[in-house]
């Protein structure tokens, strides 16, 4: 019984991680090229979104650090 549990933990979970990694790689390859038309407006919106998220994550990190 213990042997079976150990086998499951070592091989089962190991396989799961390996498969997930392969799956993520496959998805990354599949969606490597964005299909949306990258007009100036779209590029500007995505840039703004990145800046917004960076600032927000910065604020969250600050809050987390000051809480500790």
């Amino acid at each position, binding site marked *: 019984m213990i042997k079976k549990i150990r086998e499951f933990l070592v091989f089962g979970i190991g396989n799961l991680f390996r498969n997930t990694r392969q799956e993520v790689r496959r*998805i990354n390859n599949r*969606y490597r090229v964005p299909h949306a038309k990258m007009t100036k407006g779209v590029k500007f919106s995505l840039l703004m*979104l990145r800046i917004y998220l960076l600032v927000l994550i910065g604020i969250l990190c600050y809050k987390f650090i000051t809480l500790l």
Partner: protein
Amino acid sequence: MNFWAKLFYVYRKFAKAIKIYLLIAGPGMIVMLADNDAGGITTYSVTGAKFGYNLLWFLLLLLPVAYFVQEMTVRLGAVTKRGHAEAIFHAFGSFWGWFSLLDLILTDWLTLVTEFIGMTAALSIFGIPPVITIIIVSMIMMLMVIKGSYWTWEKIAFLFCAVNLVYIPAAFMVHPSVGDVLYNTVIPHFPKGGFSNEIFFFLMANIGTTIAPWMIFFQQSAVVDKGMLEKDIIWGKIDTFIGSFFTVMIAIFVIVVTGTLLYGRTEIASAAQAAMALMNINHSAGTLLAIGLFDAGFLGAICISLASSWAFGEVFGWAHSLNLKIREAPWFYATYFFALITAGTVVLIPGAPLVLITLFVQVIAVTLLPAALVFLIILLNDEEVMGKYKNTVTQNAINITIVVSIIILSTLYALTALFPNIFS
């Protein structure tokens, strides 16, 4: 054609339209009623108890906000036949795709925990222990999907949507002043003392409960799973509008209940607390509020867990439809059950940081909402993909105004939640 023949013709046309609507209705109505989830009912209850009827007018403004945002998901889903997660991956590449998917999964799971908190709190009022609530709720939610039919799931969901209407009789039971309610709903104004930080916080909270990231993902995936086509878009829009109308009406009725009986009497912090306080004044109204809170949590939970499973299925390429049996779509159902079981278990852990989770939901949702809304607008403007269903100039003007306002207000709401004294 004589008068009676004309009348019969009109009647047949109308009956046919109703029949088509009833066949296609579903995603819009369900997502909108599920929008009034446990968190939403808490927000409305506390708003009513704190400000009475004074902020009723603001809820009317939220009707077009909810409709215009969700209507875009109907068009996008019906035209592209892709859920929102897959649409983001396809249009913006894997970086934005992973960001949206992982953020959605985290937000959904945390929101699911808050739905379980709401459901257990509601049934605790009737003496049902949380562990029994979670087991029964999880079993019902599993039974809803086990048949492998979207229609069955939708019909059961509609039943729970109907229970959401309990706030209407509850409002009549407390005998509100109809004149006051109508005046406060139609005439915009602020309570005595004018605009304050507290009012601002509550206005933001009400907006926050109106549009949540999971709603965008859920409705688009549901439209695809239901198999809606471009010709069905008009019915999908009507469905969404009727849903928006009901969601606002229910919010108004909740505020009327707590505003009539609790305004100026007692401080409350949650819907469950409001239900218990109401029971001491009007037992029937308090009972209906508690039943409604449970139902709101349940509706929210079934939609949120599905939104995550659909998103995972779309991106990983798993079979992901409620029309498939468990053995045909094992990963789709595995993620659905996994989310349910883990979220339910967290609520049962003694000393779990439930208040922190509730706070965290508001903040994490704000990291996803702007991205999901911006992507929605960009996708709806892609003529190659949307063809004649792309946003018109008027739709863009309305939608961009709404999206920018939501982003600003929800960000301020998150900042207020993180730093309560920031604007004082």
